[in-house]
């Protein structure tokens, strides 16, 4: 019986095991191997040892892309979290039509970030774009080195606020109304109740939103590619995923791109583990007892 189960199980697992091994595990090993080679996408590969690592370390653009990405994450995460929480509080007041607003807010999130990037590229266009027409001014949203990264970050926030809000709505619903009523009976004002009761109880949701948000914004590519191709003015929007792409498929320095990919992998794994640790250490409030 047991051995029949085993055979059945492995037969059922075979396709997905192949998929996981071939397209998720093997690539990690291959990319490490590629980091030690020189390749231009077409010709033969030559083993060059750590030459690529040295080249990437000496080329300031990779370090810059890490910094750009960090700034991008530092703008997007607080903005989308605060706005998402505000939207959730508004949606959670139980007013008529809340469901309709909720649907509207999620719309951008369903669409391809690439396509929304193209739409916003027109909206932010200097002479014939919608935003400047509305403002009656001529602002170079995407070409001015000081404005390009905040503009790209703003578009990302616009895309994700509704999605973040959904999680907060779910989190708010999980808070028993008795807890809030007790706070009010104790004479707490609305702000006090929010700060001392609601917010601590939302901590698990907050962590989930922050963790997934940081990990996904760290890999941003599509919308940045559509809004500001080739790293934007003076490379101010050259995010890591974009740098890897341009290095491999435009400059054809595949080995160096592989080095960057390995660094990104290690970095994201470290971030994920650190966040998990932190998350595990924090106590969450158990209301079931």
């Amino acid at each position, binding site marked *: 019986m047991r051995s029949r189960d085993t055979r059945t199980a492995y037969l*059922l697992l075979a396709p997905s095991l192949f*998929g996981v091994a071939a397209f998720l595990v*093997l690539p990690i090993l291959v990319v490490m191997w590629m980091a030690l080679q020189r390749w231009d996408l077409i010709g033969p590969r030559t083993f060059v040892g750590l030459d690529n690592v040295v080249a990437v370390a000496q080329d300031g653009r990779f370090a810059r892309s890490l910094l750009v990405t960090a700034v991008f994450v530092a703008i997007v995460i607080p903005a989308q979290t605060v706005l998402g929480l505000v939207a959730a509080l508004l949606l959670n007041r139980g007013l008529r039509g809340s469901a309709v607003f909720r*649907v509207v*807010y999620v719309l951008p999130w369903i669409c391809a970030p690439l396509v929304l990037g193209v739409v916003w590229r027109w909206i932010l266009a200097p002479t*014939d774009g*919608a935003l400047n027409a509305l403002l009656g001014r001529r602002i170079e949203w995407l070409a001015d080195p000081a404005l390009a990264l905040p503009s790209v970050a703003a578009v990302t926030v616009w895309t994700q606020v509704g999605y973040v809000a959904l999680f907060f709505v779910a989190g708010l619903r999980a808070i028993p109304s008795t807890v809030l009523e007790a706070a009010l009976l104790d004479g707490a004002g609305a702000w006090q109740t929010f700060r001392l009761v609601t917010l601590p109880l939302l901590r698990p949701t907050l962590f989930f939103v922050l963790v997934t948000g940081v990990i996904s914004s760290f890999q941003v590519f599509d919308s940045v590619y559509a809004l500001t191709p080739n790293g934007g003015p003076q490379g101010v929007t050259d995010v*890591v995923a974009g740098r890897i792409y341009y290095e491999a498929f435009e400059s054809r320095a595949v080995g160096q791109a592989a080095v960057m*990919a390995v660094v990104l992998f290690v970095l994201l794994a470290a971030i994920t583990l650190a966040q998990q640790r932190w998350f595990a250490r924090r106590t969450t409030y158990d209301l079931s007892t």
Partner: protein
Amino acid sequence: MTTPSRLRGAVSTGATYLLLVVGALLTLAPFLLSLLTAVKTPGQFAAQPVLAPPAPPTVANFAELFGERYDFVPPIVVTAQVVAVILIGQLLFSVFAAYAFARLRFPGRDALFWLYLATLMVPQAVTIIPLYSVFADLGLRNTFWALVLPQLFGSPYAIFLLREYFRTIPGDLLDAAKLDGAGTLRTLRHVVVPISRPILATLAIITVVTHWNSFLWPLVITTGRQWQVLTVATVSLQSQFNGNWTIVMAATTVAILPLLVLFLLFQRHVIRSITITGFH
């Protein structure tokens, strides 16, 4: 209720609605503005203020988009085919794997499940280069298979979700099927799948949305028009005809519309699914 507190209630309700409406306008404006531009003639767009209403609205841009010059039909067909094949593969193989993890005992189960979960951490920007290299070596660049193969065999994410669901199926039900002489495949088809319809519908929607919107992999693994998907076609149209915003906005409208319709039809399902799954 005293009058001042009732007044305060009314004011706060009014303020809430005001903020909700402002949020909705900010969310919808880009969609409406791009549609506004998509139904203008290039001449009107160039001659009149950007925000002027289309007079009269025209479908000329859409006709042109599907005409010989831009030829936007093939990318839609390719995208639909890719999504359909991936959808079938992912649902089928994810159900297989999830059932094994949830319902069968076998050596190595926990280690394998841990491995599947760990792969959720692998970023796409990391796998794109080695996958390109492998597909190039196999001579599969710029083929239909290159677009679907990496996604065809189930996703660890879907397997994780389905496993959670399958664990809740009462054991008696599965035992009864076994007693009736049903093999594993028949049990899956006649017991497990019918019970799991809600989660399967959710996964189907997630899969369609994710792969309809997919961009980076198709961008690197295909060249030219033959296997160009909708996202790649849209951005290449934009860079090729930069400034011809009427035709570009017609293209973005076409690229977005199918998913918007799908979303509005199944919005309850999608919204619930996002919060239970936190999919990405």
